[in-house]
């Protein structure tokens, strides 16, 4: 068995007081130039980032961006072709066994014994670890009380996902990996999971999550990295990512026939023109001027602009600007 005493000598300065983890300086995850190819496909093509202790860090990107491969290398489940990976001060490539008792993992597809009940699966996984949280506490935390004695094969997709997250927490880990945790969840369950993640953070634990939901990333992540085609395009806090690119606000409306990009680019204050799912986005420093020009132009064409709205730029706009396409098609 892996030594798991968190006060162990040589393990550093991690000490647990009640349920709080007293934090030490230095990142919990450090990745340097990680590469992994499958044949011709460069699934991960030179990824570097760091996650600080007590931080919720997000890997944001479309399916196939390389998020899952990256996370599974960090969990010790895959061997990279090259690169340095340090997790909780342990080399996750060479000594993954030293890591396993200290991390919690929820895979992208909930991996559950189909014939066992919710409580049986939790008790089973709990028995793999020398210490952890009581099953009843996790059942309550993930709101699975009514499903305690249901076999996992009879759970809905969202319930399976909740159980998968509960399993990631059975050993009360210092660092939790959640790969697309809210996929298949209804909005209420999603909000509940967000509370769980924020609770982990407030008790000093660190979380690495992947998602392709912008809203989720904006609400949960202290910092995030935007991935596409195996590379990190940009990273930072949400505010940094947005303001680095957009000083402007976006005026949005459904595209109007006969109103071309070239003409809109000349409207007062407009810095750039984008298209998103049949809508036009005008990034502008002069919102009233731009709206006035839009109304005048549409009036001239004999139409009224539909769904006219103003908003701050979002991560979605950042992604669109970085990759030229929307995150979810």
């Amino acid at each position, binding site marked *: *068995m*892996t030594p*798991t005493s968190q006060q162990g000598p040589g393990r550093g300065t991690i000490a647990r007081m009640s349920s709080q983890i007293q934090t030490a300086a230095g990142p919990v995850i450090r990745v340097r130039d990680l590469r992994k190819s499958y044949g011709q496909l460069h699934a991960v093509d030179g990824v570097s980032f760091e996650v600080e202790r007590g931080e919720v860090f997000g890997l944001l990107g479309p399916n196939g961006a390389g998020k899952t491969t990256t996370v599974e290398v960090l*969990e*010790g*489940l895959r061997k990279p072709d090259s690169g340095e990976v340090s997790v909780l001060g342990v080399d996750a490539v060479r000594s993954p*066994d030293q890591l*396993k*008792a200290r*991390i919690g*993992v929820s*895979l992208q*597809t909930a*991996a*559950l*014994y*189909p*014939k*066992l009940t919710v409580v*049986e699966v939790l*008790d*089973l*996984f709990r*028995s*793999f*670890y020398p210490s952890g949280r009581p099953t009843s506490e996790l059942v309550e935390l993930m709101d699975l009380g009514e499903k305690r004695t249901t*076999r996992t094969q009879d759970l809905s997709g969202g319930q399976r996902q909740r159980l998968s997250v509960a*399993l990631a927490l059975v050993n009360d880990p210092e660092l939790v990996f959640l790969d697309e945790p809210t996929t298949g969840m209804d909005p209420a369950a999603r909000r509940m999971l967000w509370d769980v993640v924020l609770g982990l953070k407030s008790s000093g634990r660190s979380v690495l999550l992947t998602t392709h939901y912008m809203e989720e990333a904006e609400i949960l992540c202290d910092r995030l990295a935007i991935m596409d085609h195996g590379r990190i395009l940009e990273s930072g806090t949400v505010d940094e990512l947005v303001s680095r690119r957009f000083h402007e606000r976006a005026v949005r409306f459904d595209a109007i026939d006969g109103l071309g990009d070239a003409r809109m680019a000349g409207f007062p204050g407009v810095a750039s023109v984008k298209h998103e799912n049949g809508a036009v986005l005008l990034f502008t420093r002069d919102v009233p001027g731009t709206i006035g020009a839009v109304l005048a132009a549409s009036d001239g064409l004999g139409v009224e602009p539909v769904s006219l709205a103003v908003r701050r730029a979002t991560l979605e706009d950042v992604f669109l600007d970085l990759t030229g396409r929307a995150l979810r098609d």
Partner: protein
Amino acid sequence: MRALLRLTVANIKSFTRDRAALFWTLAFPLIFIFLFGSIFSGGNNDRTIGFADLDKSTHSAELRTAFASQPNVKLVEASEDDLVAQMRDGKLSAVLVVPAGFGATVDTKTAPATIKVYTDPAQTAAQGATFQLVGGVLGAVNQAASGRPPAVTFTNQAVQTQDLSFISYLVPSILGMSLMQLGIFSAIPLVADRQKHILKRLQATPLRRWQLVGSNVLMRLIIAVVQTVIIVGVGATFFHVEVSGNWLTIGLLVVLGSLAFIALGYVIASFASTEESANGMTSVVQFPLMFLSGTFFPIDSMPDALRTVARALPLTYLGDALRQVMVGGTAFSPLWLCVAFLVVWLVVCFGIAARFFRWQ
């Protein structure tokens, strides 16, 4: 150790909640035993015979009593035409007709009184048994009518011959077959767990691979013991098969046989990528083993070519060893050779699985 035991319990729960697994490992062998046992063991060889009394005399009534008192004979009475029709339908193996005037002929003793017997010459064994029955009953009636004691008679002494009764042969064979199925079916949940990423998820815990494999093997060995008790128990209770061997030797053979076939299951799991292909591959492996390994009849009675195949199959040696140890069956190979073959088989399969098995 705690993790290994908890995982073993979880595996047993998953197993007992899987109807297909339960059927193949527990119900399927019992079906074979009950089916073949009832057909061949002589447990129920009652013969139903039609009896038409057209005479209605005291003599015909005596004759009916004499036939009805024979062991394993059930008489059905009706009209002659009706009984013959029933016999054509296969419901009766023979029909006896006592003609009108039978009693009068017996009383006058002018000529032998005659009864009519319908048999089907195509059913050689049934016809022979009917003649034997009728001859025996009429002999006794004639002898009683003569008023003198029989001149010659015999007593019977039972001797156990070297030839096993079919059911004694079958019970250890079916046990071997069940252990084979239990073992190779280990491939299916294993591949399913890999396909559902359960093996990957377990790899992210401190659980070691030897604990995972150990719990799977332990679970199957426990079920193997349950199977052995059930099969031997059914054989003893319903078919009077006496297991005379040393229980320790039997237990060691059950464990060795289970391990050899679990190893084969892991070989299948090494080459099957989906649950469906694992299902297909176990069937492809299972049926030749079941029918070419001397499970239902001795391999001595097979054509030469098939016997050569049988000599290369592990179930041949497991069945042979179990029959030798449990019911004193005639050996096709010495016990040490059976054990050696199974050990080599186990080691080779283990090597192949260790080389080719993928966890993800």
